[in-house]
């Protein structure tokens, strides 16, 4: 006689279910352990303070506060961030007037795009002297603030203001810490249009020395951060403040993703239906800046020229600003007519225009100078 099988279908089903739950629990444990190992391993492989090299992908998610403190405490010449460039007023040894054989002093304000074009001008016309003022990745409000600070310091005949499409929304910021992953840390004012007037909110920290002092002065640091919190449109507490996320690769990457999302959403406030929103604060302030730039330049007896760099789409920037420039008869060059952004061959791998495009834009600027300052024409050597 065979003994009855004491196991029933329900009990074998129950034990099967228990096995599956147990296996799933073990899978979860191994997943968490593996993730922690990956986090630790990648963290050891890529040093935390390397913001430029191979570790930069993971370290761009460090807190902005953490990046800043690391940069300020690094030995001279070893800072992972650009410390010395772009501070408003901190420029010396620049030409103040055209001397010698030079007949024309051109002062150019902006970022690398406008400087690369301006640097071509003497190649096309050897009578031109250059006074270049700006900062790496500088948005329009920085360029304008530099122009205003510089007005009394030179006797330029022509002043050029560069406007870059990709950084136009950032004129709602007060420094690059809040929107750039590898920021230069100079500060600049934020401008607002208040009852038709352009009003500046000046940064509480405006020099590198003041920033270094603030890093050791809790009250000053608090004011610096508080001003960004209240007036910088890109400020995000999660991205700025140091926290435990800085110590984990996964945490840094998550913060980086968050920061990018935040920047994209903030940028998007300047856009409507895929192009710049004419009613947005960004475009209204940009127009007010360009208008005041032209008015003050003319009051100083200078020729104002605006160069619009449409580097992200066909002609968004032109559509947003050209009507104002035309109505106020401000001479301008629009890059989309010379080098459309839809043609990748117009760009270098680092997304600057190619030297050939820079030269063509410079030739267009030179045409404007010659057309508006006929009395100052000289024998000019036309570029190819």
């Amino acid at each position: 006689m065979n003994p009855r099988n004491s196991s029933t279908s329900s009990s074998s089903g129950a034990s099967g279910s228990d096995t599956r739950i147990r296996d799933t629990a073990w899978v979860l444990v191994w997943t968490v352990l593996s993730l922690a190992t990956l986090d630790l391993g990648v963290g050891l492989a890529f040093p935390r303070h390397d913001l430029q090299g191979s570790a930069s992908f993971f370290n761009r998610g460090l807190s902005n506060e953490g990046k800043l403190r690391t940069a300020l405490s690094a030995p001279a010449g070893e800072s992972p961030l650009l410390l010395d460039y772009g501070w408003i007023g901190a420029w010396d040894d620049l030409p103040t007037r055209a001397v010698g054989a030079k007949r024309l002093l051109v002062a150019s304000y902006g970022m690398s795009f406008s400087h690369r074009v301006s640097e071509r001008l003497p190649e096309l016309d050897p009578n031109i002297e250059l006074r270049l003022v700006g900062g790496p990745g500088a948005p329009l409000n920085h360029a304008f603030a530099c122009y205003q600070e510089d007005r009394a310091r030179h006797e330029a005949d022509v002043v050029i203001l560069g406007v870059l499409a990709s950084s136009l929304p950032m004129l709602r910021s007060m420094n690059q810490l809040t929107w750039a992953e590898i920021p230069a840390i100079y500060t600049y004012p934020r401008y607002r249009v208040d009852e038709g007037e352009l009003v500046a909110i000046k940064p509480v920290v405006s020099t590198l020395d003041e920033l270094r002092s603030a890093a050791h002065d809790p009250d000053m640091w608090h004011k610096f951060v508080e001003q960004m919190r209240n007036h910088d449109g890109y400020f995000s507490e999660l991205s700025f403040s140091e926290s435990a996320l800085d110590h984990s690769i996964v945490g840094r990457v998550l913060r980086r993703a968050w920061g990018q999302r935040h920047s994209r959403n903030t940028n998007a406030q300047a856009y409507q239906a895929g192009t710049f929103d004419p009613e947005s604060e960004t475009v209204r302030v940009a127009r007010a800046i360009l208008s005041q730039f032209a008015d003050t330049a003319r009051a100083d007896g200078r020729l104002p020229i605006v160069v619009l760099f449409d580097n992200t789409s066909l002609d968004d920037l032109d559509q947003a600003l050209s009507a104002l420039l035309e109505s106020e008869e401000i001479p301008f060059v629009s890059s989309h007519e010379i080098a459309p952004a839809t043609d990748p061959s117009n760009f270098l791998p680092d997304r600057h225009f190619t030297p050939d495009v820079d030269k063509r834009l410079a030739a267009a600027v030179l045409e404007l100078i010659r057309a508006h300052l006929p009395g100052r024409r000289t024998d000019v050597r036309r570029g190819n």
Partner: protein
Amino acid sequence: MRSARTGVAVLFNSLEFFFFLPVVLGLYYALRHRAQNRALLAASYVFYGWWDVRFLFLIVASTAIDYLCGLMIGRGQLQRRQGWLPFAWVLAAAIGCVALQWQGIRFVEAFPYVAADDFWNFTWKGWGLPLATAVLGLVALGVCHAAARVPEATRKKLFLIVSIAANLGILAVFKYCNFFLENVETAVRSLGGNVEALRLDIVLPVGISFYTFQTMSYTIDIYRGTLKPTDRFLDFALFVAFFPQLVAGPIERASNLLPRILAPRRLHFDAMTRGVFLITFGLFKKVAIADGLARYVDGVYGASAGVSGADVALATMLFAFQIYCDFSGYSDIARGVAKLMGIDLIRNFNLPYFSRSPSEFWQRWHISLSGWLRDYLYIPLGGNRGGGLLTYRNLLLTMVLGGLWHGAAWNFVLWGLYQGGLLCAFRGLASLAPESNLAARHLTAKYVTARPQPATLVFLLQVASFFALTCYGWLLFRATSFEQIVQYTTLLFTDTVPWMLTARPSLHTLAALALLIGTEIIEYRAGTVRFVQNVPIPIRGFAYASILFLITIGLCNEPTQFIYFQF
């Protein structure tokens, strides 16, 4: 509730969905069957309305029309409540979604959302639509009551025509109207006529192609006698608007999804773990791979000049993976979310790039659409029953209309024609070879079986060569204009210049792609999706950790809208 960012759908990989899903699931698990269905219906309407609340009216109207048509086809008459509930539902949608606009919430920051200053500001847009809806609704109910006396065959045909006409009419207006007008304009101009731009300002509702096809299949199946109509209107509304598959499929058959909605669901541990896995793997495909490839592909296909044949070839091949990961990733997430509710959706992709012939491809790619086209278009046209030429005609017509389903543009028509051409060509080649020939059997394969094919050199060559043919089809699909098709085809076959574009997909994207390809090779050879259960637990854990790590890194890619949202 209007979003200040209308036009942005809730993406499965968005922060909004990250909060939406746990709330919905929490409510779902706390409720019983009927209440679960009501909660899911409300959640589905919130999910769809988040994009643009006005177009909820369209879904509700389509729901009501097909519900009534289904009853009239299947039963021939309406009970009192069966008519008045849909009528009230559509009228409420006309008032609440279109006529009454409320700027209650403004999304001014990424997070948290803040209430608008004018929180209590309601705007009344007019009585036009609600009155028209009421009048049409009453007329429709009157017609239904009168039609009860019509002979059965005539009545069935009449209401089937009404259902198809209504759904195709919605598609025609919202999806194809401007395409038609543009072509008329072009034709008139080419004949020397002078005509002003005829384009209308019509927004394409997200998911319209999916839910109209889904509801059409309901009434057609009732007409064929393979399905009985349901008299539970709100459950039927859930079948139409079920949020996991509402905006990008799979296109569910009523015979599969409706019974699962009508009956209480049981939650099984296996199904829930499988659901979590599908959601994770779907996110991996979308976030880590598709979004990572998008930037490079967009750079090539968005360029007006300055690309080489090598760029076109690489971008097209990567687009093949982008669209696969984007679409199958969405389907995986949809199936995973549904599994967490105890509902099984149809599997929409089955390793399509292992196909060696077009017929095999269409049994593996967008299975729900190809099945729909087969059952409701190809077979009614005659299928392969009419002999050679008629079969080719039916294949071409089905695939051209399938291409047009994807979008109102000539490149989609071309793509459909190309796919139809491939089907005809392979069929023709097979008919020339003897019956016993393995190659012939392969060319006309109906053989997506559980058994994997041996990895012989011939097999690999077949897969690679058919993949190349598929990729050319994707060039037609992805191109932004006919001129670009001509230009890039010419570059592909004549240009010997190496890469011109310096931008490349990132290393982590390519690593994620390699992981996906490796996983699918293992799945193909195992012949089952359950192959992971045979993998030792520590290795499984490490693989899942790698997937999660790559998803985290992929979050740094700029998110792109799911490609099939535009269809």
